């Protein structure tokens, strides 16, 4: 196989990372990246289901045109807190802090991350930030929208803007430390023979993500400080009544928050590369193109923030530049989709659950990406900007892309993480329910958006009702789809069959050790002698 570990099935070690120590202390003071990953897994799931609950309440309100289920103020808080919890406390940490934390060291053949204590600190910082935001939610919430646009957030809103913003500010440092840790780890901790072009593509995309996190997050931190200073100290940065410029906030905010979209989706793309190769038993088609596409997205992603501001009154020429750059950033994403598809060519394609999620990702991300082209086209964006078209578009990217990748990754690596197999039949059923529920929820929103239904509307004209009912029906199906895996995953921890070291026959280093792995990951430090994804040692065929 690709990496020369002593034997394909190493002997059962005395202890694995789950059984090496017991008790609350052994978890809360752990420096093992795998245990920290599980701490993250538990915390982000709390926020995922909390954010999902908010979404459900939003959809219930929108079942009828009148604002009759909750009050306008409550509705505004619901969509704000849905965005805040999902983006900052679930989506941004989800894949990096759970799957990245667990598997980056294992995939490069290392014992741990470069800075294990810093890694634990990251989790504590995340928890402190989350508590601030949780406090704000419990004490009445915040109603600015997750975008915190000024001067509404600094001069007009009388909800808990500061507590929420401080929570996001603090959690940002958790991201920065994790990103830093990944960058140093990938540079310095690779096993002998693990050259840059032998890195699994999940590691490449995590590396690109870390670069964005480290460069972008400080900007949003500064922006939040400025909002704080204006709201509390009345320093005029953004409010024209204090001599500020409200558009400046949008530039600063999107300078981080657009790249943040790639923080959320790049790791999922990395997961998909692992899934498609493993379940096609093929080397990835165009390894270097997929790897450099990640870096290309990371770089170009910093140059397109102005496409959120085509109708803000910024100059027409700025609009032109941001439009063309937005088209450019779509190209590397398209290249990835084509390469994943080509990887299946002449492969041995298995329909196990993780691969179903990969199929789902490719389909939904493609629709999300293509509708992004509508938004990059200036003339069309003017019409669909701030309508449900946008909502549909970014949910196809975030939910259809990132969450599909996340769930695919969790299923794929679950045998390694837990040492148990999940029930395949239930898992396939859940994947199907999620796919159907997702499309029924969000596809009608494209139509609603082009019809002109604005986002963040508590009540809406009745001609939009039928499409909203479809969307709400889809959301309830989607909700069920997300609860099923939660149940069977927890069930499998106790009742699932024991997992072998490498249930999928994958070539990744993480599958060369036992399931679950020992605390030091490998009994013997691995030495790498081959490219990743070498499934067959027969002569390589050349196409095209």
């Amino acid at each position, binding site marked *: 196989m690709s990496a020369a570990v002593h034997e394909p099935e190493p002997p059962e070690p005395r202890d694995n990372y789950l059984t090496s120590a017991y008790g609350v202390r052994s978890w809360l003071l752990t420096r093992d990246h795998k245990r920290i990953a599980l701490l993250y897994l538990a915390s982000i799931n709390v926020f995922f289901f909390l954010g999902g609950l908010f979404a459900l309440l939003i959809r219930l309100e929108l079942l009828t*045109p009148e604002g009759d289920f909750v009050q*306008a103020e409550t509705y*505004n808080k619901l969509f704000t807190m849905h965005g805040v919890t999902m983006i900052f406390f679930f989506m941004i940490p989800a894949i990096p802090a759970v799957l990245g934390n667990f598997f980056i060291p294992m995939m490069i053949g290392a014992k741990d991350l470069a800075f294990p204590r810093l890694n634990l600190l990251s989790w504590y910082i995340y928890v402190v930030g989350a508590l601030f935001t949780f406090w704000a939610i419990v004490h009445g919430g915040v*109603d600015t929208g997750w975008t915190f*646009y000024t*001067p*509404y957030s600094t*001069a007009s809103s009388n909800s808990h803007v500061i507590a929420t913003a401080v929570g996001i500010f603090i959690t940002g440092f958790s991201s920065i430390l994790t990103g830093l840790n990944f960058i140093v780890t990938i540079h310095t901790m690779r096993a002998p023979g693990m050259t840059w072009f032998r890195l699994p593509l999940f590691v490449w995309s995590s590396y690109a993500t870390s670069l964005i996190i480290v460069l972008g997050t400080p900007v949003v931190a500064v922006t939040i400080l400025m909002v704080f200073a204006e709201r509390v100290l009345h320093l005029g940065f953004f409010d*024209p009544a204090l001599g500020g*410029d*409200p558009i400046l906030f949008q530039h600063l905010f999107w300078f981080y928050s657009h790249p943040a979209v790639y923080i959320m989706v790049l790791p999922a793309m990395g997961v998909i590369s692992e899934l498609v190769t493993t379940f096609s*038993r*093929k*080397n990835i*088609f165009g390894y270097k193109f997929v790897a450099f596409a990640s870096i290309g997205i990371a770089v170009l992603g910093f140059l397109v923030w102005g496409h959120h501001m085509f*109708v803000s*009154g910024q100059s027409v020429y700025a609009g032109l530049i941001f439009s*063309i750059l937005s*088209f450019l950033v*779509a*190209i590397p994403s*398209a*290249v990835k989709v*084509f*390469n994943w*598809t*080509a990887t*299946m*060519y002449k492969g*041995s*394609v298995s*329909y196990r659950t993780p691969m179903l999620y990969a199929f789902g990702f*490719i*389909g939904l991300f*493609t*629709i999300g990406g*293509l509708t992004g*082209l*509508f938004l*990059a086209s*200036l*003339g*069309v964006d*003017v*019409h669909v900007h*701030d309508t449900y078209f946008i909502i549909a578009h970014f949910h196809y990217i975030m939910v259809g892309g990132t969450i599909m990748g996340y769930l695919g990754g969790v299923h794929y690596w679950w045998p390694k993480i837990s040492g148990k197999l999940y029930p395949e039949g239930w898992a396939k059923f859940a994947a199907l329910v999620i796919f159907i529920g997702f499309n029924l929820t969000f596809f009608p929103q494209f139509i609603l958006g*082009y*019809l*002109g239904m*604005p986002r*963040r509307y508590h009540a*809406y004209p009745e*001609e939009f009702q*039928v499409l909203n009912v479809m969307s709400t029906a889809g959301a309830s199906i989607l909700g069920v789809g997300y609860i099923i895996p939660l149940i069977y995953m927890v069930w499998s921890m106790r009742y699932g069959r024991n997992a072998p070291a490498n249930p999928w026959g994958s070539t990744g280093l993480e599958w060369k050790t036992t399931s679950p792995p020992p605390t030091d990951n490998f009994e013997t430090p691995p030495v790498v002698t081959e490219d990743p994804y070498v*499934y*067959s040692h027969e002569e390589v*065929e*050349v*196409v*095209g």
Partner: protein
Amino acid sequence: MGQTLPLFPEQASTMAGRVDALYFYLLAVSAFFATLIALTVIVFAIRYRRRSESELPRGLEGSMKLEIAWTVIPLFISLSFFFWGAKIFFAMHRVPDDAVEVNVIGKQWMWKVQHADGQREINELHVPIGRPVRLTMTSEDVIHDFFVPAFRMKQDVVPGQYTTTWFEATKPGRYRIFCAQYCGTKHSGMIGWVHAMDPGEYQTWLSGGATSESLASAGAKLFQRHACNTCHRPDSLARGPNLEGLFGKQVQLADGRTLVADESYLRESILNPNAKTVAGFQPIMPTFQGLVSEEELLQLVAYIKSLSKPQASPSAQLPPSNRAAPPTPSGKENPK
């Protein structure tokens, strides 16, 4: 009503058809590629499905030709979207010269509209069909956004500055106005109607509110009330620039820059006079921040603009009937 399932919005402006044409092009290209990718994935998934657990397909080397093809082809298609979209965007920003001028002020949570002849409306906007209408907009509090889906028109309304946009309605009717930028509790109640009318009906509507005073004339009164005319005067006693013929002209600033005197510059010079002082004058003008409301500012701007119209005289108190027909050929009102 609740049982209808509309799939496509009404087209009621000159821009609507142009936006929709690009939209359909984008839809066609997207449908093609989405189908292509989905079919390829399905065909590969079936054709190359795993037939035995032990099978190990041979590795494939990537193909440079294919990589170049699927980089370059999407790039060129994207460029076609870019140029087409940019062309429409420019048209959306190039206001025709003979446009009817309307001022819009957003505040939580209503739209206040001022017509040049002084008619005021709330959450309603009456316009003629077949004539471009230019909106000069600002906000009294937070950012709002003036959105008329049937016109494919949307523009943020930002406090502290003027934004402008325009449309030309093509058929009589009632069209929804939405606030599209989240602005607080009753954001979804900040809605209204555009009434697009035949030119004749529009004239009747205009003369219906005959008691009102034109914006320029209201502005002229404010100009005197605030004693602006003691300094801004055409004779040798002037301590401020002469405002006659100023609007739309190049202005040389004291710091060497030049700019065009537009609505935003006039507004800024009233509220923050020393930000951009005109060359040859001392920065002695006091600020009028807090002394004039957004509505009065727009009246002052309308007055200063009227000083640049050919037949206007500096002290003109234009009677409303004079301003109803703008100085364009009357044939324009009925293009067909």
